[in-house]
C-alpha cells in the first residue's frame, strides 16, 4: 500500500474518532449518543489495526501447512486486540441501549437535557432537600413532558382495525 494510502487511512480513522467524539459532546438524543460512541470506537479500532500494519506483509495465516514462511506477515497482536475491543464495544453499547430504553419508558423522552433535569429533580426529591441550583427559577413544577402513555393505552386508543 502506498504511503498516501496509509495516511489516508490514518486520517480516516482519526476523522471517525473526531466525528464520534463531536457527536458524543453535541448530541442530545440518547440513541444518537450511542451511535456516536460506536462511530468513535470504529475509528479507534481502525487506528489499532493500522498500528500493526506492515508494508507489503500478508495476513498472519500460514498457508499450505508449511511452518516455513518467507513472506512477512502483519503484526497479529493488534488484530487480536481489535477483536477484543469490538466485542467490548458491543457489550457496552447493548447496555447503553437498554438503559436508554428504560429511561425513555420512565421519563418519556430521549433528550439528554430533559432527562438530566428529571434525574436531578428525582435525586432532590428522594433526598428531601431543596433544589440547590437556581434561585431565580420560576416557582412550581418545571414544564416537563408527561411520561409516554403505556403501550396498552396506545393500543386501546388506536382506531381498531
Amino acid at each position, binding site marked *: 500500500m502506498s504511503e498516501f494510502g496509509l495516511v489516508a487511512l490514518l486520517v480516516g480513522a482519526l476523522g471517525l474518532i473526531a466525528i464520534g467524539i463531536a457527536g458524543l459532546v453535541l448530541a442530545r438524543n440518547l440513541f444518537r449518543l450511542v451511535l456516536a460512541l460506536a462511530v468513535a470506537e470504529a475509528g479507534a479500532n481502525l487506528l489499532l489495526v493500522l498500528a500493526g500494519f506492515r508494508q507489503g506483509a500478508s495476513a498472519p495465516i500460514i498457508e499450505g501447512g508449511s511452518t516455513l514462511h518467507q513472506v512477512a506477515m502483519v503484526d497479529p497482536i493488534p488484530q487480536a486486540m481489535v477483536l477484543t475491543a469490538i466485542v467490548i464495544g458491543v457489550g457496552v453499547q447493548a447496555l447503553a441501549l437498554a438503559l436508554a430504553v*428504560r429511561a425513555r419508558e420512565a421519563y418519556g423522552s430521549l433528550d439528554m437535557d430533559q432527562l438530566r433535569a428529571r434525574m436531578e429533580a*428525582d*435525586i432532590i426529591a428522594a433526598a428531601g432537600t431543596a433544589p440547590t441550583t437556581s434561585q431565580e427559577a420560576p416557582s412550581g413544577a418545571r414544564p416537563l413532558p408527561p411520561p409516554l402513555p403505556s403501550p396498552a393505552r396506545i393500543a386501546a386508543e388506536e382506531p381498531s382495525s
Partner: protein
Amino acid sequence: MIALTVALPLLAAFLLPLLPALARQFLGPLVLLAVAAFGLCLAGNALDAPSVVAIGDFRPPLGIVFYADGVAGLFVFAIAVVTLLLWPCATPNGQPDPQITRKHSLTLLMAAASCALALSGDLFNIYVFYELAAVAGYGLAAGSRTPAAQVATFRFTLLGSLGSLLALIGITLIYFRAGSLNLAHLAELAPSTLHDPLGLAGFLLILLGFGVKSELFLVNSWAPEVYATAESRVSALLAGLISKLALLAVVRLLVLVFPVPEASQLLLVLGMLGILTGELAAYRARDFRRLLAWSSIGQLGAAFVAFAIPGPAGLMAGIAVALHHLMVKPALFLLAERWGGNLAQLAGAARNSPIAAALFVLFALSLIGVPPLPGFWAKYLLLSGLAGEPAGLWWLAGLVVLTTTVVEAVYLFRIIGTLYGHQQGSVMQSRTATTGSGIFALLLVGTALSAPLLAAPLQKMATQLADTDGYVAQVISATITAPQRSGTAP
C-alpha cells in the same frame, strides 16, 4: 494460585444463574473466602519475593504475565474481604430481591476484574479487565432500577466509554511506538522510546481514561449523580474498591514505564484539584450520599497526590491513603443505607441508634486524621512525603491537604452535631447496616492498634512496588512451569 484468584470468581459468576437456589446463596461468599485466603498467601509469599506466573506458559513479552507482589496480594485480600462485606443482600426494606442472582454475578465479575487489575502485568490485559470492572459497575449502578439511576448510569456509561476509548488510543500509541504490551518489557524499552512527548501523550490518554473510574478530577462528575442514585452497597464498591484498583493500574504504569517528572506532576496537579473541588463541594452538600461522593473524590485526589511523590515514600503514602479510604468509605456508605437523604433528617439520630452514631464519629475522626487512628498515619505519611520534596508545587499540595482537612472536619462535625443534637429528625432503625460497618470499624481499630506491626510489611511492599529493576528481572526471567509444553501434555 495467582490465576485462580481471577478464574474462580469468573467461573462462579458464569455458573451462578444455573445453580439451584440454595447453592446460589453460598457459592459466591465461599469463592470470595477462598480468594481472600489466596490473597493473604500471595501477600505473605511476596514479602520474601514476588511471584510471577506466565498465563499459558508463554515466555513473558509474548504472553501475559500476572505479577503478585505484596501490594497486589494485599489488594486481592482487600477486594475479597470488602466484596464479602458489601455482598448484595435483600433490599433495605427487607424484601427479597428477585434480581439478586444477577447482582451476585455482577459483583463476582467485578471482584474478578479487580483482582486481575491488581495482578496483571500487561497493558492491554489491564484495559480488558478495567472494562470488565466498568461494565459490571454500570450494571450494578443501574441495579437500583429507579429511573434516576438509569439516567445517571447512562451518563456514566457514556463518559466511561469515552474514557476507555481514549485509553485505547493511548495504548495504541504506546504499542505503536514500543512494539510491546508487557509492562516489564515496556519498562526496559521506555527510556529509549517512550520518554518523549509521544509516550507521555499515551500516558495522558490512559490516565484520563482510567481516571474516570478512579474519580480523577476533570472526569469525575459522574460520581455525585451515580452515588446519589445507586444502592449504597454499590456506591461503596465503586468508591471504595474499583476506584483504588483503577488507580493502582495507573500507578503501575507510572512507576514502571513513566518515572518522569512530567507524569508525576500531572498526577499531582489533577489530584490537588480533586481534593479542592471534592472537599469544598462536600462542604455544601445537603444530602448524605452526595456528601460521601464528594468526600470520596477528595480522598482519591489525596491518593493521586500521594502516588505522585516519586520513590518508595510516595508509594507508601499512597498505599496507606488508599487502604484507609478503603476501610472508611464503604463503611460510611453502609451507614448511608439507612441515613441516605437529607442531612437534616439525621437530627437526634444518636438517641435512636447510638451504635451507628458512634461508628460515624469513629470514621469521621479517622477521615480527618485524628491520632492514633490509621487516618492520621496515612495523612502523616502523605504530608511528610510532600514536605520531603523541594518547595513549590509539592508544598502547595501539602497546604491544600492541610486546609481542606479543616473544611472536611467542619462538615463532618456538623453532621456529628446534628446526630447528637437536641432536635428530632425522622430516621428509622435497621440492624443490618450497623453490622457491616461495625466490622469495618473493628478493622479500623485493629489497624490502629497493630500499626507498629503493620508498618514494616507496608514499607516492604512500597519498596517492592517502587523496584522497577526487580520487577523487570522477575518477569523476564519468569520460570515457565514446564520446559516445553507440546511434548509432555497428553
